[in-house]
């Protein structure tokens, strides 16, 4: 392995009292750090160590919940450290995952209505809209250019959580091309379900209605959390996204959106998706060329 982005230092190990081990792979977000977190999580899961309750991979860190009555803390730490040492010699270069097209209605009326209720005291620029602000802080010409940048390159699900099934998304582009937008000055008490949001360098899709501090640009047209498990994509589990999924946003019109709603009601909606092998070194060497290769998988479905 070579290249500055891959040169991660040894992780920092620390405890959340008697039930949680926290492994900080990197203080800063990077694709390489997220990849290492996912590798650690996968190998720890494969170890089937008795007493592990939850393995929660996050953007640049790993949280492990354990039952200390079964698994002594030092045994867990020793195991994870051994996995980490092994990874420095045999770090996986590839990830078996899937690429998914997520239809988004940008500039929808639902987020627009909520946005209007949270301006003064909440937003940096109460006079404008979230997407106008996002375009401005990224030195882009206008909202249309921001939206184009938002959906033209794919994103990696770097973490699932906060609330049930919410994906954090990291755009697969060079750091200097990352869209970065500050969160609201003070969090809203309301966010429409399926809002496509952005805070710092992360995108997200709000899986449930509720509080939120990310800037809002649109709504995803189809569910991502379905406790009733009515749709085919939820047959195995009520949560759709998994860490490592690759997401391509696809802009849709109001007419498309309504047509998707009818498919959902009829129970026929399925996400367009394909299995892909994600190659870290290719993604780091030339993201845009590699993204074109990844997106080809979605063609002809």
């Amino acid at each position: 392995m070579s290249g500055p982005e891959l040169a991660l230092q040894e992780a920092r190990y620390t405890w959340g009292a008697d039930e949680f081990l926290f492994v900080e792979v990197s203080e800063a977000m990077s694709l390489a750090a997220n990849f290492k977190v996912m590798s650690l999580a996968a190998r720890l899961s494969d170890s089937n160590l008795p007493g592990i309750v939850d393995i929660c991979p996050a953007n640049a860190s790993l949280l492990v919940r354990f039952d200390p009555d079964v698994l002594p803390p030092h045994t867990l730490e020793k195991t994870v450290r051994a996995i980490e040492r092994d990874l420095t010699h045999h770090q996986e270069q590839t990830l078996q995952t899937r690429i998914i097209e997520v239809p988004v209605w940008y500039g929808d009326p639902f987020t627009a209505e909520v946005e209007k209720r949270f301006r003064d005291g909440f937003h940096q620029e109460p006079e404008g809209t979230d997407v106008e602000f996002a375009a401005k802080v990224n030195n882009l010409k206008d909202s249309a250019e921001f939206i184009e940048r938002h959906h033209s390159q794919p994103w990696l699900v770097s973490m699932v959580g906060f609330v049930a099934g919410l994906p954090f998304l990291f755009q697969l582009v060079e750091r200097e091309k990352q869209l970065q937008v500050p969160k609201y000055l003070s969090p809203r008490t309301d966010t429409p379900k399926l809002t496509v949001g952005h805070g710092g360098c992360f995108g997200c899709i709000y899986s449930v209605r509720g509080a939120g501090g990310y800037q809002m640009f649109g709504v995803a047209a189809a569910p991502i959390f379905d406790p009733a498990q009515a749709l085919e994509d939820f047959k195995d589990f009520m949560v759709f996204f998994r860490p490592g999924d690759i997401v391509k946003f696809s802009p849709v019109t109001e007419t498309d959106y309504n047509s998707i709603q009818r498919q959902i009601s009829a129970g026929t909606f399925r996400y367009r998706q394909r299995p892909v092998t994600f190659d870290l070194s290719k993604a780091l060497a030339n993201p845009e060329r590699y993204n074109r290769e990844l997106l080809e998988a979605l063609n002809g479905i």
Partner: protein
Amino acid sequence: MAFRIKTPGLATTVQDQGRFGHYNVGIPQSGSMDQYSAELGNALVGNSVQDAVLECTYVGPALITDHHVVIAITGAPVDIKVNGMPRPQWTRLRLNAGDELSFGVIQGGTRYYIAVSGGIDVPEVLGSRSTYSLGVIGGFKGRKLETGDEVAIGDPINNRTLSAVEAVPENFRPVFTKEQVVRIVLGLYDHRLSVEGLDNLLHGEWTVTPVADRMGLRYSGPGVTWKDREQPFGAGSDPSNIVDAGYAVGSIQIPGGTQPIILHRDAVSGGGYAMVATVISADMDLVARAAPGTATTFRAVSQHEALSAREELSDRKNEAWAAVGATR
């Protein structure tokens, strides 16, 4: 067999020991906030430790049973009435078909529990009957109870026979006070606190604010300061920000350095605020009992001490079950 809800109370939900193993996709453990009180209710009515109970928050429900049932009310001190007549807490009670159970004003703490012989019978979701309201899963239709709900009660036939002991002895009932010492283990991002910040956390007096629910409790107090640093990429601009990470249940975050938040059983599973310490597992019930206004000090202990306290709590639960003639 069912309870018909006449008035629902403030936030009455079905809870059990919790839903584990799905925190990695943001589904919290849920479960009774005060596990100790909830499980002793089950002990009194001949249930197992896994049976579901009703958790009442400050203002309890009024409900009518359609069958004779054995119940017990445990947890925060509250006046209990059956058909308007006072009944004791932490004691086995027998209701006849048509009897109405209701509650007076809570006298301390936050939550009390209605355990019923046979348990509350709602479908299990992902291995638990606990309500996760935000995700609208588990419990009674994934939500708090409403007027007119018919909440099914399980069949007690398979349960063991009731012991001769009718009440939890006084010395096994928790004390509900307005002052708490909560034991914490420093760690996670405690190195980000300044010397004064750490000193304030450990030696300041913190007060539970009204912003306290199943997700977490917010405290007011002296605030903390952070060490200076250039924020890492993706972390956000405030010194209390980190690159969004998994949140330990019981962890303490201090957004903006002002008001610490202890995440509890319906915790959000991750976010971008630095956690500086975690409440030991043995003190999570104690925190659950903290009403707004509770004066709190945080005492740092080692992980070793946390493990000893965990063992002591487990022993104490076993002794409490034995004291009511039940086996945990």
